[in-house]
C-alpha cells in the first residue's frame, strides 16, 4: 500500500513531457500544461469574443450579463488603482483573471478523470503502456505556466516604467530611491545600495506572484490526490469540504494575481 501510494502520488505529479528521457534539457515541453491552458485560452477567447460580437445594447442575455459583470469587476479595480491612461492594462487584467480562474478551476475535476482518459487513449490508440502515460490537468500547478505569466507582467512593469518616466528617469529612480539625499557624495555612496534594494524589489514581484499561485494550486492538487488515496466510501468526508473551500481559493488566487498586477503596474507609472 505504502509503495503503491507513493507511486500513485508520483505518477500524478509527473508531467506529460514531450521528451520522456530523464536527461531532457530546456527544449522539452509539458504537453499537458500547454494543451490544457491553450484549450482554456480558446474557451475564454471564444466565449468572450462571441459575447462581444453578439452584444446587445437593449436586450442582453444571461451570458452577456455574466460577462459584463466580470468586465465591470475588472474595470472597477483598474479605475480605482491605476490612474494613468493605458489601453493595455484593463484587457491584461481581464485576461489574467479569466485565464487563471479557468486554469485553477481544472482542479475541480476529479483527480483521476483526465489522467485516466489520457491513459486509455494512449493505451488504446497509440499502444503505450498505460503506466507510462502521464497527465496533469491543472496548468497553474506548473511553475512554467505561473512564471510565464508573472514574467510577462514583469516585462510589462519594466515597459510601463520606461514609458512613463523615460529610460533615464527610471534609471535615476533605480539609483536614488528609496534612500535619498541632496549631498552629492552621499548620493554616490547610496546609489549601489539603492540599486540593490530596487533589484530585490523588482525581482520579488514576479517571483511572489508566480510562487503564490503555484503554491496554492500545487498544495490544493496534492491534497486532492491524498484524499483520493482514502477508501472510496470515506473520500467525501474530506473531499467535499476541501472542494468547497477550493472554490474560494481558485477565485481568490485569480483575483489576487490580477489585483497585484494592476498594483505593480500602477506603481511602475507613478513616481516614487
Amino acid at each position: 500500500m505504502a509503495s503503491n501510494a507513493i507511486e500513485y502520488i508520483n505518477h500524478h505529479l509527473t508531467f506529460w513531457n514531450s521528451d520522456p528521457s530523464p536527461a531532457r534539457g530546456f527544449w522539452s515541453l509539458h504537453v499537458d500544461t500547454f494543451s490544457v491552458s491553450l484549450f482554456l485560452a480558446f474557451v475564454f477567447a471564444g466565449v468572450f469574443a462571441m459575447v462581444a460580437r453578439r452584444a446587445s445594447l437593449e436586450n442582453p442575455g444571461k451570458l452577456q450579463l455574466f460577462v459584463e459583470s466580470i468586465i465591470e469587476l475588472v474595470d472597477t479595480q483598474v479605475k480605482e488603482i491605476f490612474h494613468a491612461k493605458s489601453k493595455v492594462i484593463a484587457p491584461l487584467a481581464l485576461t489574467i483573471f479569466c485565464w487563471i480562474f479557468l486554469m485553477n478551476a481544472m482542479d475541480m475535476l476529479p483527480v483521476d478523470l483526465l489522467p485516466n482518459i489520457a491513459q486509455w487513449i494512449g493505451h488504446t490508440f497509440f499502444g503505450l503502456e498505460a503506466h507510462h502515460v502521464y497527465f496533469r490537468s491543472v496548468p497553474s500547478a506548473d511553475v512554467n505556466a505561473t512564471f510565464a505569466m508573472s514574467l510577462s507582467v514583469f516585462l510589462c512593469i519594466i515597459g510601463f516604467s520606461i514609458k512613463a518616466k523615460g529610460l533615464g528617469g527610471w534609471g535615476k529612480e533605480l539609483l536614488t530611491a528609496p534612500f535619498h539625499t541632496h549631498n552629492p557624495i552621499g548620493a554616490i555612496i547610496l546609489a549601489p545600495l539603492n540599486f540593490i534594494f530596487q533589484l530585490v524589489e523588482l525581482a520579488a514581484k514576479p517571483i511572489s506572484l508566480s510562487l503564490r499561485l503555484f503554491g496554492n494550486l500545487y498544495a490544493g492538487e496534492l491534497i486532492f490526490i491524498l484524499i483520493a488515496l482514502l477508501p472510496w466510501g470515506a473520500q467525501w468526508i474530506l473531499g467535499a469540504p476541501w472542494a468547497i473551500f477550493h472554490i474560494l481559493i481558485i477565485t481568490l488566487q485569480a483575483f489576487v494575481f490580477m489585483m497585484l498586477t494592476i498594483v505593480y503596474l500602477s506603481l511602475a507609472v507613478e513616481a516614487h
Partner: protein
Amino acid sequence: MEFNVTLLGQAITFAILVWFTMKFVWPPLTNMMEERAKRIADGLAAAERGKQDLEAAEKRVADEVRKAKQQAMEIIASAEKRATQIVDEAKENASTEGARIVADAKGQIDQEVMRAKEALREHVAQLAVVGAEKILRKEIDAAKHADLLSSIKAEF
C-alpha cells in the same frame, strides 16, 4: 520545479490572448456598456424633464381654471347687480308712471268736478232765476236785475 520551453510557450499563448482581448473583447464590450449607461442616463433625464413639464402644465391648467372661475363669478355678480338695477329702475319707472297717471287722473277729475260745479252752478242759477222769476214774476225784470242775478250766481 522544472523549467523548460513550456514557459516560453505559455508566455506566447498569454501574449496572444492579451492581444486578442485588447482587440476583440474589451473595446466592443466596454463601449457598449458605456453607451448603455449613457442611454439610461438620458432616459432618466428625459423622464425627469417630462415630469417637470407635466407639473408645469398642471399648474398652468389650475391657474386657468381658477381664473375662469373668478371671471365667471365676476360675470354672475355683475349680472345680478344689473338685474337688481333693472328691477329697481322698473320699480321706479312704474311708481313715477303710476304717480303721473294718478296725477293726470286727479287733474281730469278736478276738471270734471270744476266742470260739473260750473254746470251745477249754472243749473242752480237758472233754477234760482226760474224760482225767483216765479216768485218775483211781476216785480223783477230779468233784464233790469241781470247784474244782481249774476252776482247771486257767483255766490253759489
